[in-house]
């Protein structure tokens, strides 16, 4: 199966700090008899989403209102590169890329404090009008900000 690696974007639009919680992690006795405890793969998506929310908040947007429009998610890709533990500080770097007429991508890198990349995420988003139930062009204001 092919996997298109998420490349490091040229420009980072937003950086924020996150803290993993115990509830993000799981502990288990693995077959070799030792206890393994780390942030689970599905909760990495949760952290990527949290970084996304903080990004929107920073630009005075929210998922309910982004430059007067709304967005829907068409795809989410994640790749895992290092283990994350509970109660650990992480740096999230967010970039807006691949701006099309109606869609764009959000690249989210989750880094450890020492700079090691723990996870890379790509969220593909499309502007959408819930009233007309139709996709719509990227609002000018948004385009100007991130192009």
């Amino acid at each position, binding site marked *: 199966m092919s996997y298109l690696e998420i490349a490091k974007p040229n420009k980072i639009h937003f950086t924020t*700090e*996150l*803290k993993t*919680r*115990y*509830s993000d992690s799981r*502990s288990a006795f693995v077959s070799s008899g030792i206890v393994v405890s780390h942030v689970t793969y599905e909760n990495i998506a*949760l952290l990527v*989403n*949290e970084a996304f*929310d*903080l990004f929107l*908040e920073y630009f005075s947007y929210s998922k*309910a209102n982004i430059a007067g429009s709304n967005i829907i998610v068409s795809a989410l890709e994640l790749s895992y590169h290092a283990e994350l533990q*509970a*109660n650990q500080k992480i740096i999230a770097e967010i970039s807006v890329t691949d701006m099309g007429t109606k869609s764009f991508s959000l690249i989210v890198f989750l880094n450890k404090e020492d700079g090691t990349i723990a996870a890379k995420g790509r969220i593909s988003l499309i502007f959408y009008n819930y009233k007309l139930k139709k996709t719509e062009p990227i609002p000018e204001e948004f385009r100007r900000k991130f192009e």
Partner: protein
Amino acid sequence: MSKEYITFPEKIEFSTEIPIRKIDLSMDLHVSFASILDLVFEAHLQFFEFLGYSVTNIHGKSIIFANLNIDYLGELFFKDLVKIDVALANMHEKYFDLYFRVQKNQNIPVAIVKIRVLFFDYSVRKVVAIPIEFKNKFPFACFQPNLETTKSLDYPTKTKTKWKQMQIRQSVQALVKEIYEYTENLPPHEEKNLFLKLRKLAVFILTQLTQSYSNKIYVERMKSLLRLEASLLELEELLELSESLGYLHTKIDFHNLKETKQLLGEFRNSCLSVKKVILSDT
């Protein structure tokens, strides 16, 4: 604003900071009453990690929660930085209390939580005593009876007269002795009747007095007191009967009986006013 009922102990054992996430919010309003507990649980896990334990292995034992009280004092929103202080109190043989004080952005109160924690052995699925090594870590948490319950549930506490110095105890003991001496003089055919009844009653009065002084349960103390009073009346009645039957050859005063009855009023009052007894002096 709401009133605080739970008194947070003075000594903070551990503090942690947790940033509030967007998904912690309920219906985009604020962190829900239930989600506050998720944050508390987070602090709880961090605290045990900090102590070098895992919650499933504290000197080979685990812990379970018996009950939980929360005072909600403020709201939490997205991007708030929550500070949770953890404290410990009321270390007893099988349980202790964990306290969590939730505050945000420069000490704005959010909630105070008190959890009663029991030690549990999953291999036998039974509540067990707190490991001594754990107890020794928190000398401060032992012997703090005034932090026992939330203020609203507090009973007036006062120490009672020491048991051995109680006048009523001395007079009842003398009464028992007196009855024993008296019954020696009863005719042999009363051995299975009055002789036995009187002696049993006298001893019963003493045991009920002890119970009504020392039982930790208020209602039980009251019950013993009622039994004590009834038994005294019964004793009096039986003595009167034996007198009318002519067994009382020499006039015995039974002043201990009278004295006991006099002291009973005072004793009853002390039983009623003290709901929570400190038994360290018995």
